[in-house]
């Protein structure tokens, strides 16, 4: 019987179990801790096995540096780590640093750690059951460490009740492993459930862009690899690398956006806001780009000791990071402004294929069923930005790639170049108009189909946006200033950005605690719902640290006007008119997609057309 009101010191075991509640929330978090340990140990190979969603067994084996018998004893103790050299938590260069993981897991499960230190000739094993450690014993094991966690949460039945189905927990763990695998292309990863391997990422060498894209392709899919632009920017000691999907290759959710800070996967509202800001012109509100960004910052620039599972970090200068992300994304996207997603052309070709499928031609090249893949579709003139556009098979299938390349025709269809004057133009020369809606133009090695309305709309939109950016946004002063009640913190956040908002035509002032008063609004919005607008922006500042609604509203007005002010489908165009449109598209940034992320033109390579006819 415990007496109420008397303060007692908790036992070591209880302390560990409480800590475990924060660190080991579910099997996936145990997996995360263990895989991070493996990576911190310099592993080049990490094999993970989860049985019954991790409840029965979690096993993580690596070929890292391993531990000696003395180290093993300490390793399972709480607050024991080899990773924290200085004690002020400023320079943290490893994934882990608190020395809590093994002790926490050990307090809620049966934990077995077997390890052989590099250079040592014997392996040792230590076992921990529900927080009670046993003596270190000799064991047989290769280089590296194997950790086995059995009956997770057996010691904390409360947590056990909150476990989801084995499948759900397995999925979570797989997600964690994929994130880590993105950040460590140098290490090979396998994940299995004891019967079969469900995820396999072979090591692809260094951290260089190519290797990284290769790894991202394995995880995010081959299409991502074909539709990504490389990000590589540096500013004031911060380095941002990674790959961002083209706007035409977008998704319905934002779940495929990954940010890594010093190799550590983090979920951060900063990323969401910056990404939406950068893509704001190219995508409809409900579409989200796919991307993986790797931010390398000096260890003292970031505080990772904010969240028990380290899912959030804090930057010393968040504005700098946001600026870097937005500007480098925008820069990369403008450079790729003319690269519509290859999936578009791939889909077009796919739509043409079915007639052939019933009657496969005898001379189809090996792997011919793969030809509906967007192989080589991306524009050659931008090929430099798409280093992997042509390579569609991963390493395990490398022999296909090589045999395929043998089938390349030795002669390129160059004769066309002579008779078209527009060979120098990336979008070629207009050859005609189909259904008074689509412009067909011939280029040196293929043809281009342009949606005339979408293309012209984008051109008008870009022009309006430029005009809007060149001059100040005209503001209508309000006769009846609108008072908007907000939460105190939201109001403060909004006021902090007042200068930025004023540049976009919205003048807000603080109005006591928890309210703002709107004095002037952008004149082009007319008689608008000011309260709604301000509330939306306050929410966005909270969620993403970025107020996009206003910009989007202005963009919407421009978009509507652009739609009305542009050439409609159904209008006949003369050849000079069509050519003028093509030339303007070449000169205008971001003309490869319309305001909603749909492509404005599709390019079909001659080689692909030849394939349709079974000529290759």
């Amino acid at each position: 019987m415990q007496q109420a009101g008397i303060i007692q010191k908790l036992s070591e075991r209880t302390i560990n179990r409480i800590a475990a509640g924060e660190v080991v929330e579910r099997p996936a978090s145990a997996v995360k801790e263990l895989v991070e340990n493996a990576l911190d140990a310099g592993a080049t190979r990490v094999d993970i096995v989860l049985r019954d969603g991790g409840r029965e067994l979690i096993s993580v084996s690596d070929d890292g540096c391993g531990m000696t018998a003395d180290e093993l004893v300490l390793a399972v103790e709480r607050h024991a780590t080899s990773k924290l050299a200085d004690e002020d938590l400023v320079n943290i260069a490893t994934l882990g640093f608190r020395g809590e993981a093994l002790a926490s897991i050990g307090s809620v499960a049966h934990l077995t750690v077997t390890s052989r230190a590099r250079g040592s000739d014997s392996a040792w094993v230590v076992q921990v059951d529900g927080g009670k450690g046993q003596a270190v014993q000799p064991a047989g094991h290769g280089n590296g460490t194997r950790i086995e966690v059995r009956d997770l949460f057996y010691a904390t039945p409360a947590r056990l009740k909150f476990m989801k189905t084995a499948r759900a927990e397995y999925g979570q763990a797989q997600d964690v492993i994929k994130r880590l695998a993105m950040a460590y292309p140098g290490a090979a990863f396998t994940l299995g459930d004891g019967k079969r391997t469900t995820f396999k990422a072979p090591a692809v060498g260094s951290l260089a862009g190519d290797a990284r894209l290769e790894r991202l392709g394995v995880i995010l899919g081959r299409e991502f690899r074909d539709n990504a632009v490389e990000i590589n920017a540096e500013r004031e000691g911060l380095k941002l690398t990674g790959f961002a999907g083209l706007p035409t290759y977008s998704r319905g959710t934002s779940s495929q956006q990954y940010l890594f800070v010093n190799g550590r996967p983090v979920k951060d509202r900063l990323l969401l806001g910056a990404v939406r800001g950068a893509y704001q012109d190219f995508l409809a509100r409900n579409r989200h780009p796919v991307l993986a960004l790797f931010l390398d910052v000096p260890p003292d620039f970031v505080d990772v000791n904010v969240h028990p599972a380290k899912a959030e970090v804090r930057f010393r200068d968040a504005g700098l990071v946001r600026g870097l992300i937005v500007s480098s994304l925008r820069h990369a996207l403008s450079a790729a402004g003319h690269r519509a997603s290859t999936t578009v052309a791939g889909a077009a070709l796919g739509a043409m294929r079915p007639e052939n499928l019933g009657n496969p031609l005898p001379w189809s090249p090996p792997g011919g069923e793969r030809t509906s893949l967007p192989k080589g579709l991306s524009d050659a003139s931008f090929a430099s930005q798409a280093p992997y556009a042509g390579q569609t098979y991963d390493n395990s299938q490398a022999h296909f790639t090589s045999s395929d390349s043998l089938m390349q025709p030795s002669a390129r269809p160059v004769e066309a170049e002579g008779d078209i004057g527009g060979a120098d133009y990336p979008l070629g020369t207009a050859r005609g108009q189909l259904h008074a809606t689509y412009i067909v133009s011939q280029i040196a090695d293929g043809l281009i189909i342009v949606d005339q309305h979408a293309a012209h709309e984008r051109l008008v939109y870009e022009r309006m946006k430029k005009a809007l950016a060149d001059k100040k946004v005209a503001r209508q002063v309000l006769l009846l200033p609108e008072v908007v009640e907000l939460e105190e913190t939201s109001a403060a956040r909004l006021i902090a950005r007042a200068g930025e908002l004023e540049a976009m035509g919205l003048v807000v002032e603080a109005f006591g605690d928890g309210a703002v008063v709107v004095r002037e609004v952008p004149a082009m919005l007319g008689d608008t719902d000011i309260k709604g607008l301000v509330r939306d922006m306050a929410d966005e500042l909270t969620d993403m640290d970025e107020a996009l609604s206003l910009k989007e509203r202005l963009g919407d007005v421009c978009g509507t006007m652009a739609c009305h002010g542009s050439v409609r489908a159904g209008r006949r165009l003369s050849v000079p008119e069509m050519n003028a449109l093509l030339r303007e598209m070449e000169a205008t940034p971001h003309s490869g997609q319309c305001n909603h992320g749909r492509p404005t033109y599709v390019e079909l390579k001659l080689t692909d057309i030849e394939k349709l006819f079974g000529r290759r």
Partner: protein
Amino acid sequence: MRVAHSTVLKQCSGQWIRPNFIDRGEVIPAQVLGAILCTLKNPAQDSQRHKYEEERQIMKFTIERNSLLKTLNHVQSVVERRNTIPILSNVMLEASDDMVAFTATDLDIAVIENTPANVAVKGSITVPAHTLHDIVRKLPDGAEVELSLAEGERLTVKAGRSRFQLACLPKEDFPVMSAGDLPHRFKLMSEELKRLIDKARFAISTEETRYYLNGIYLHVAEGDSGSNLRAVATDGHRLAQVEQEMPDGAMGMPGVILPRKTVGEVRKLVDEFEGGVDISLSDTKVRFTFDSTTVISKLIDGTFPDYTRVIPIGNDKMLEMDCKVFAEAVDRVSTISSDKTRSVKLSMDSDVLTLSVTSPDSGTATEEVVAGYQADALEIGFNSRYLLDILQQIEGDSVQVQLADPQSPTILQDQLDEAALYVLMPMRV
């Protein structure tokens, strides 16, 4: 079971099932019965049938096409084109002694009009308002229109050789808007009401979130020269304020906000009537009575902002000029502004007003106008559309603009009509 063959058929195919038919305890699905009877030959003779139907008439009247059209014109605009409650698409017809009452409503406004007609059988029903209106509109001028309804049938509309049958719904389901107790009553001449509405309604806000601005605020204002009846409308960018001499009985009335739709309906009716309009109101409803037409409307349940605070006092820079010249010049220079903002810049210096518009796309425009202006030079920007809206309301030849500085509200006033005043907020370009 013995039932007249035609009756059963009607019951099966029409939408009414006569309760007495069911009451007999015959349990035969209507569709089955219909199918059987359709295969039999109709034993009833045409004449017999006619006679039978005469007995079953529940409403019948004839009315001259033009007066029917006029009435329908008055009531049908209240009816929304799309309704979630089907009966709201209908107009209610109630035939009594030599008079038919037409009622239409959208649950916020009801318009009722009584029209003389040759009523043969008194009764009532509701029919789709827009359909009936379209039919009557297309009938030839001067035609006699007969509307009749037999029990269990559709409404028959006959004119000349045209014959229509319209689906109808029973009158009992039609929502009746009761005006309730309207303690305040006064009379306005139709020109006075017209003036109040016309000069204020352009400034009504269309933004639904500030619902309390979606109408004209009608209230009693205490001025230097005693009390006046005042109408105010604003959308937060500009404001219109019009006054009228206090009518008898209006003293002590609550300030009310007339919804935009009601304002539109009343304005339409005002044009067609001369003489006085009876207005009675409580703090939730208002009723306008023209000769034979009544409009009952809910009022906007909200508080109109204290607009008097935003009407500036002491704007000392006076610009006086010919209203028509001003309006034409604004209209001309604003041609150049292609974007949505439509801003025009006014530069005033001794007796000259220069209007200018700059558009990055299309170029620039300037126009110089002679004006009466003696104060210090001033530059100020306005939305040209707002400026034109106001200038259109000014009936006199000349307009007086009272300015303070480029950020502050500006007053525009008709020099002939001191009782109307407009406030406009500048734009910052």
